[in-house]
């Protein structure tokens, strides 16, 4: 319990609205199969494009499927794919970053050039190029997004690894005769993973957006599996007669992304040491705003 107290203290500093949205998203995603009131793929053409009623709280889509159930199941789809993307991307990124941070020298230079190039090309274009070569499919989408995503965690974990390697206890370990393996797996890797995990949570919003975008383009999650982006594109031809089916999944996705983005900004700001003056806050913010453009002077 004592170990958890600092965690709670940290959580208290985060914006409450963002935490609520994220908890809701994760809870919905995890328990979706039990929460959905109806079968999300049960069609009923006679009740197609119906408005809200007691049976269908948010109405039905053009095939008469219950929209509320589909929205809830879509949270599950989104959560699972975002989770897989981030886990794969972070594994690659942390490995590359810690190796670069441990060795320095030409290994570091080479890996960081690759990261720079990866960061300077929009992730959507990288992901689409991979899908275009390998062919569409669920796992292609996950791998393509992971390939587009790892440079970010690679850069962060490299920075963390460099700072850990310069700490005195690593030097003490060296003097004591600890093997490189022990330093790497016992001290460098665990320390880096912890720090990068926090950033990954903040990144989950953009990853969810990317999954939805690919699904919207028809290259991600395929029907009939409900997914917000795919539900939106599905309902787009009926925009004039039934805009609700376009707006609801869009709003759900936007709410999730806003939650994660707010959390991300809070995490970035939370890392400043106290006391926190307004000037330092401004400087920190510029740094955060400049993250995207760092690569332009590579």
């Amino acid at each position, binding site marked *: 319990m004592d170990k958890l107290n600092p965690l709670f203290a940290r959580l208290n500093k985060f914006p409450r609205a963002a935490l609520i949205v994220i908890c809701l998203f994760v809870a919905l995603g995890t328990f979706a199969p039990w929460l959905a009131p109806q079968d999300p793929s049960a069609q009923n053409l006679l009740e197609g494009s119906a408005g809200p009623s007691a049976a269908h709280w948010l109405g039905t889509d053009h095939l008469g499927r219950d929209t509320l159930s589909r929205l809830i199941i879509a949270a599950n789809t989104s959560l699972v794919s975002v989770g897989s993307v981030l886990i794969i991307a972070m594994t690659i990124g942390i490995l590359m970053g810690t190796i670069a941070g441990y060795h320095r020298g030409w290994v570091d230079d080479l890996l960081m050039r690759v990261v720079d190039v990866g960061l300077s*090309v929009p992730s959507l274009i990288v992901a689409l190029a991979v899908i275009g070569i390998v062919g569409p499919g669920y796992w292609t989408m996950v791998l393509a997004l992971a390939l587009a995503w790892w440079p970010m965690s690679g850069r962060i974990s490299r920075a963390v690894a460099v700072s850990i390697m310069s700490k005195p206890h690593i030097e003490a370990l060296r003097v004591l005769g600890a093997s490189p393996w022990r330093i790497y797996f016992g001290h460098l890797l665990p320390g880096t993973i912890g720090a990068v995990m926090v950033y990954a949570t903040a990144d989950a919003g953009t990853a969810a957006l990317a999954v939805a975008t690919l699904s919207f383009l028809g290259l991600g999650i395929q029907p009939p599996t409900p997914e917000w982006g795919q539900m939106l594109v599905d309902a787009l031809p009926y925009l004039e007669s039934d805009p609700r089916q376009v707006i609801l999944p869009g709003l759900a996705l936007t709410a999730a*992304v806003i939650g994660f983005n707010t959390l991300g900004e809070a995490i970035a700001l939370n890392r400043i040491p106290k006391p926190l003056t307004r000037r330092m806050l401004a400087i920190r913010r510029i740094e955060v705003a400049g993250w995207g453009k760092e690569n332009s002077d590579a």
Partner: protein
Amino acid sequence: MIHFISKRLKHSLVLLFLASVVCFTLVVSAPGNVAVLIAELRGAVAVPGYVAQVAEEIGLNKPLLMRYVDWLGDAVTGDFGISYRTGQAVSADLPQRMMVTGTLIAGSALIATLLSLLLGFLGAFWPYKLPDRVSRGLALIGASTPTFFVGALMIYGFSVTFQLFPSFGFNGPISWVLPWLTVAVLPAAVLSRVVRVGLEEAMTSPYVLTAKSKGLGRTAILFREALPNITPVFINALGTQVGLMTATGIIVEPLFAWQGVGDYFLAGVRFRDFMVVQACLLIFLTFFIVVNLVVDLAVLMTDPRIRRQWS
């Protein structure tokens, strides 16, 4: 100055070379036999003899380096090979498509610049007051709303409900408005934060204190002292956003039935038409490199500190 420019130019040329290598390897490493694809495309059943003939014809039997040189030579002169899907030259309507995408990016960049300056200045003028909170909220919503959702809302609001602008097509400025606005939302949101934060940072610096002590008003300080100071930062961020607009274009162009490069790229990806994917990718990467070069030069022009450093 000249030293700086030549250094950046060399840097860009190296990047261009790397980009071409990436595009080339991507297609070479693609699974499946290209010769079989082309043989089938020409209507013949893929008989082994014919496949071998096709392979010979398109130079598949040459060493990789030779193939790269051949391909690059063709690409530089605007010949991107033959589309696997249609059997026609990839470059047939590329100039037209590049013009469409160029129109999209140019208009959106202009709108995003104006909107972000407006929002950012509103926030900086009344910091932590209502206008600042509103601009901050708009930025958060704008940066978090998926582009395809923005596009759908634009069509529903301005085209279905109010019938102000056409919902698709590329005919005249009236039909350009909705795609421009759709693409501009995200960069405007991000850039407005850059402006707002940059202005706040500038307002705490010593030269602003000097200006204040000289008796200058807040408006004068913001426009005369702070604005020139955030210009380089803003141009840098704008460059990144313009690069990102190519990606947004991939989503927005099909939505509004624009025949641009993004639309072409997406079609290539859908039908696994490697030659189209390769050509569009090369165009995108070249565009990023050129934008970066232009941004560097623009920063050099607007930032006397960097200019002095290099002269």
